[in-house]
């Protein structure tokens, strides 16, 4: 994390303060600061969040793409993280500077989301072996205050929660290869079920005590920290020791219990926030928004619904054609359609009157 250097007296003041359960900004050891979460910050992303916790400021956007699953996991969708430390946070992130930090954060996130319980990966797969949703979670760090890892993990969970995944209405078989057909209605989407997703709690060790939600000063006078991924049920999904300190075995068990308790509280607050954002979105669109989560049609249901026939797709992209599952596209049909929309008239292309 970006370090600021303090004099020894300041460090001693903080360490002794933490020992007496009074921190530099008046909080007790286990108090969490309030955070502001703002939704829909990036309009051309499927879900975007901006989290600001005192000095840490992070923008997270998720974009959903159509990709193909890995060979060894044919039935699962894919979830990719990319952390980008912008030089706005501190001059040392200029050019290649921030790579070391973003790699560690990426590693921790992928390891805590890799267990299947976190996100229901099976529902992200459209056609096993062939097509699946690839959710790209891009994290942009604008300001690097203390507790960066917690804020990013919370942001990821919130962002995945409100990410709108377009719905596959049907399957089109051309030359025997099933290709998914997406809905054209902007307001028809489904949400991911994020109740199981983990939240990371970092416990920097200041003096002999663990501290929750450390400010940047406290982090610079702590030698190391434990990053523990906790789900809403209190299970631990991943533990990582970062930094150069070593822990007594006894204190490890105590800190994990502590993190589990704090993680549950964090999860509860976050889930409420996600629900509130979704309900706001509901008022925006038609009131009969489907309750809860639409269960996406599995591959078998999609295929059963379509009577399979080999269909030749016209080579010109269908710009204005409506979607008929069994429509036959002949060339004259398309040209007549495009003339209707005077696509070939001169003024569209060369730009003069």
């Amino acid at each position, binding site marked *: 994390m970006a370090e600021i250097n303090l004099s020894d007296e300041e460090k001693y003041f903080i*360490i*002794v303060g933490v*020992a007496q359960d009074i921190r530099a900004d008046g909080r007790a050891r286990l108090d969490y600061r309030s955070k502001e979460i703002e939704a829909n910050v990036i309009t051309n992303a499927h879900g975007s969040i901006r989290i600001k916790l005192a000095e840490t400021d992070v923008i997270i956007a998720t974009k959903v793409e159509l990709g193909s699953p890995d060979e060894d996991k044919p039935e699962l969708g894919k979830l990719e993280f990319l952390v980008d430390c912008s030089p706005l946070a501190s001059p040392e992130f200029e050019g290649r500077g921030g790579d070391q930090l973003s790699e560690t954060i990426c590693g921790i996130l992928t390891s805590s989301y890799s267990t299947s319980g976190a996100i229901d990966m099976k529902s992200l797969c459209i056609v096993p072996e062939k097509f699946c949703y690839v959710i790209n979670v891009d994290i942009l760090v604008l300001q690097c205050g203390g507790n960066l890892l917690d804020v990013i993990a919370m942001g990821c969970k919130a962002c995945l929660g409100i990410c709108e995944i377009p719905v596959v209405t049907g399957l089109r078989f051309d030359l025997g290869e099933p290709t998914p057909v997406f809905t054209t209605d902007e307001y028809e989407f489904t949400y991911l079920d994020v109740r199981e997703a983990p939240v990371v709690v970092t416990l920097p060790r200041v003096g002999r005590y663990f501290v929750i939600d450390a400010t940047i000063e406290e982090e610079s006078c702590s030698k190391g920290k434990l990053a523990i991924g906790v789900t809403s049920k209190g299970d631990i999904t991943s533990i990582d020791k970062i930094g150069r300190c070593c822990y007594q075995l006894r204190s490890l068990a105590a800190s994990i219990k502590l993190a589990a308790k704090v993680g549950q509280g964090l999860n509860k607050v976050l889930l409420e926030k996600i629900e509130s954002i979704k309900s706001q979105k509901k008022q925006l669109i038609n009131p009969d928004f489907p309750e809860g989560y639409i269960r996406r049609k599995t591959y078998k249901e999609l295929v059963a619904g379509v009577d399979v026939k080999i269909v030749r797709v016209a080579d010109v992209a269908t710009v204005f054609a409506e979607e008929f599952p069994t429509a036959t596209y002949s060339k004259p049909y398309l040209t007549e359609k495009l003339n209707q929309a005077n696509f070939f008239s001169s003024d569209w292309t060369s730009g003069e009157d």
Partner: protein
Amino acid sequence: MNSSISTENKSVAGEGIKEDEGYEWVIDEEEGVPKRKKIEDRTKVRVLNVQANDGTFVMPGQKLAVANEYFEAGEGAYEFANVIYAAIVGKVCIEKFPEQELTVVSVKRKGKAPFISPTIGSIVTCTVVNRTYGLARCLITHVEDVELDDTMRGIIRREYITDKNRDAAEIQSSFGVGDIILARVVGIGEGDFIMSTSEDALGVASATSPAGYQMIPIDWTTMECPVSKARVSRKVAKIVQPQILKSEPS
């Protein structure tokens, strides 16, 4: 910073608490909160209770002795929370210094000598790499008598050459490129170590003349090439020159 609260305000702190002697109020260094600490009986302190006596084979992390003002961790050992631990693999050796009432517990290792980084005050042998008006840049190859794996960079400034006429000395007339010199590390600078050759025993130990022969010092400021009799001015180190030892018997 283990300052102990004097006895008169002990009553203030412990009104209700039963006064059992053997405990005193000491401000805990880490916590900053007065804590009751057992009074260590000072009498037994002088005796060294040692887990590992002299000459035993030791692994890093093994407890050696209890540390207090009379015992210290020497080289190859480190002290943590008043206990001396071994830091390297080797044999324990305990040296007593009666006049300072101090015994030093250290771990020595035969075979490859452990790495010693040039610290302030250590004498260092180095070879001069290049010279400018203000300073001579050289590569440190040995620290005291331990050879380094990899050379470290050091510089000698013009003012640090001699104590006598400090500003009359010049780099050109005291060091030549390629000379092997003895110097003392004065400071750990930004990129290179700052060294000085102000004492008499420091300076050029051996230099090769333009003709390529080992030069012999004539007096403490000039050296002569035995073959071409060319004279070059150097700041010669007042140490017994190896050639003189060789040429003594003849």
